[in-house]
């Protein structure tokens, strides 16, 4: 036990961030700089970059080649898909979702932001806050990314002028306030020369805040899910087998939110049946309590009917009707597939560990991603469209609003015809309609 407590202090934790922006903003250069200055680019990668850059007649190393891994991307000089990159410092391990800024923009950004703790929005200091910057920030906010870092890049091209940075910050802050974004951070930097990325340099001395890397190393993203209400979606059942040492039925899953303790009174939704936590099992022995996001096996004191897709919550919460299984939901949908929505057909919705049939009943409005304004009248949804929709579910789902809990408020839409993932959804609320 002592050992585990120690490990929690010594080990670095994990931060996932999405970098949004186009080649013009210097996003690849910024990621390259972050990796290079934190000594996370290896010699053979660097040699490769040099060779390829030379082959293309570029005089300096093109860092975008680091993340553009597919042949088609290298041939066309564009980023097609989200790439994941990894680096660590003594403080943290970082996972970067590098999302391309142009082609299929919304689709990729939404994908990268879905798991991110932080989104970096790049702004070209010469151009100021553009529609594109707002779009990036809007999508990050829509996907519930807790922290927004506004990196004002190319400060070298505006003579490292403080007033340029201040003006951009003021304008963006106004916009972020309108969005309702809570944690917004600003860093002036030059990705090309490295100022304020990993090291401070000596040309932005007026900036009192941390460098970009310092910021990423210290942002508090734990948002301690351990204190939130318990959400335990059941993934799998394990049958008792005394010969192998399993005495009771086991419910396998990951705690998506909250803390569970042995002896806790729990309710299984949607059935509403109640029991008590008899044991929390792991390969490393029984636990007295466990918190999100650990994967564990729960055993209940009573033999009740529990299956995949059910959600185990604390009894008090269930009694307070915090979670009524929903038959109708209102959600924001991002359409991700080239084949548009066909409202004549039912789709499949995968939400936590359940998959149910569903119909998109209504399109309330779409969001004009450039004007960031609602537009009425859409009859269908095409790739990269974002819309508020009403959905009728063939089976009830136990869900939360996405704004409250990402894990239990998110879903994907699958087209049963070819099993393609066609849309991503964020639950706004359970609909007021009668079931």
């Amino acid at each position, binding site marked *: 036990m002592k*050992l*585990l407590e120690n490990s929690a202090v010594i*080990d670095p934790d994990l931060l996932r961030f999405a970098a949004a922006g186009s080649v013009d903003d210097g996003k690849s250069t910024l990621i390259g700089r972050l990796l290079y200055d934190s000594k996370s680019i290896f010699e053979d990668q660097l040699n490769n970059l040099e060779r390829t850059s030379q082959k293309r007649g570029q005089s300096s190393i093109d860092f975008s080649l680091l993340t553009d*891994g597919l042949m088609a991307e290298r041939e066309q000089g564009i980023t097609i898909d989200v790439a994941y990159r990894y680096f660590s410092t003594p403080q943290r391990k970082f996972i970067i979702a590098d999302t391309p800024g142009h082609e299929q923009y919304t689709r990729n950004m939404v994908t990268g932001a879905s*798991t991110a703790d932080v989104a970096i929005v790049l702004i070209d200091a010469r151009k100021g806050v553009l529609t594109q910057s707002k779009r990036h920030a809007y999508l990050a906010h829509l996907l519930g990314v807790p922290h927004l870092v506004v990196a004002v890049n190319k400060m070298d091209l505006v003579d490292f002028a403080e007033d340029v940075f201040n003006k951009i910050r003021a304008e963006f802050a106004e916009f972020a306030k309108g969005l309702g974004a809570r944690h917004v951070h600003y860093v002036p930097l030059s990705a090309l020369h490295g100022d304020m990325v990993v090291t401070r340099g000596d040309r932005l001395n007026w900036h009192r805040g941390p460098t970009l890397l310092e910021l990423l190393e210290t942002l508090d993203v734990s948002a301690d899910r351990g204190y939130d209400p318990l959400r335990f979606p059941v993934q799998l059942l394990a049958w008792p087998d005394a010969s192998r040492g399993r005495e009771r039925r086991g419910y396998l899953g990951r705690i998506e939110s909250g803390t569970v303790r042995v002896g806790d009174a729990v309710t299984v939704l949607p059935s509403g049946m109640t029991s008590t936590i008899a044991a929390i099992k*792991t390969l490393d022995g029984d636990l007295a309590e466990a918190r999100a996001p650990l994967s564990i096996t729960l055993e209940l004191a009573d033999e009740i009917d529990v299956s995949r897709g059910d959600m185990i919550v604390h009894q008090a919460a269930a009694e307070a009707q915090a979670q009524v299984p929903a038959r109708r939901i209102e959600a924001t949908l991002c359409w991700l597939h080239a084949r548009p929505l066909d409202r004549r057909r039912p789709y499949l919705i995968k939400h936590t560990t359940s998959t149910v049939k569903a119909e998109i009943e209504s399109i309330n409005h779409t969001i004009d991603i450039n004007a960031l304004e609602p537009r009425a009248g859409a009859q269908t949804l095409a790739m990269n469209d974002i819309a508020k929709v009403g959905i009728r579910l063939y089976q009830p789902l136990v869900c939360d609003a996405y704004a409250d809990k990402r894990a239990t408020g998110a879903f994907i839409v699958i087209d049963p015809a070819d099993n393609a993932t066609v849309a991503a959804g964020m639950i706004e609320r359970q609909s007021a309609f009668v079931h």
Partner: protein
Amino acid sequence: MNSIAQHCKAASNPVHHAARVSPQRLSQLDVLESESIHILREVAAECSNPALLFSGGKDSIVLLRLAEKAFRPSQFPFPLLHIDTGHNFPEVIAFRDKRAQELGERLIVRSVEDSIASGRVVERPGAGRNALQSVTLLDAIAELGFDACIGGARRDEEKARAKERIFSFRDSFGQWDPKNQRPELWDLYNARVHAGENIRVFPISNWTELDVWQYIARERLEVPSIYFAHNREVVRRTGGLLPVSELVRPRAGERVETLPVRFRTVGDMTCTCPVESVAATVEEIIAETQTTRITERGATRMDDQTSEASMELRKKEGYF
């Protein structure tokens, strides 16, 4: 490296467990482990006939421990499958068999030699068998009716892999279409396939080489001896050290040297290069991994260096 040793769990001490509480702040290894367990359980729940690719290499050794964490005390809900190139290091094959037996899990072996003998593939003299492996793998998937294969590939290994999904769809020819992948959001994995198609699942996508070694240390996992420094006869070829064996003989003008080396990856003996090293323990390997300036595959895989897109091309044809 003491800190690593301190992380080792006290699995044999039930007194600790009775009162154990999960730590306040989870380390990155705890988070990665939980993510991987979640993925393995999703495969078990959503796929009707999965298999776990086990080669005896470090990444699949980690996969097996994660499967234990996900399913024990029950039997694994999938067999282990190895596609044997016939060019594997004997120490690794011996380890593979021993580990499968210790776990009491079923190991299925299909061999590239058989594919060559039956005329399904033609071997090009002097070429490695990594590409041929894809055919044997796809044949095994068809023969045994697998709808999902769990593999130990990581995104940090290679740039095509950096673009791969955790649940990666393969069409009825086993092909990967990197430009047309299913978007993967949150941790809502789409494992659905029609008959004949399959899914490749990579539960340790988000792990790095260092994470793997730190986990091996933390879990006190045994690995094949060739990962540790040992003296071996090698020749210098195409910028790397190539181990001399019955498959690799020194060419005219090449000098056989005996050097202290270890392998960072274990693959086809004809194209997997060791690195010079004196690291004799997992802790020393971790220290070396933390300071190395060469990527894992960059140092060790000659077949990846034949072109900039070798891995992407192989993967498109069904490689894992």
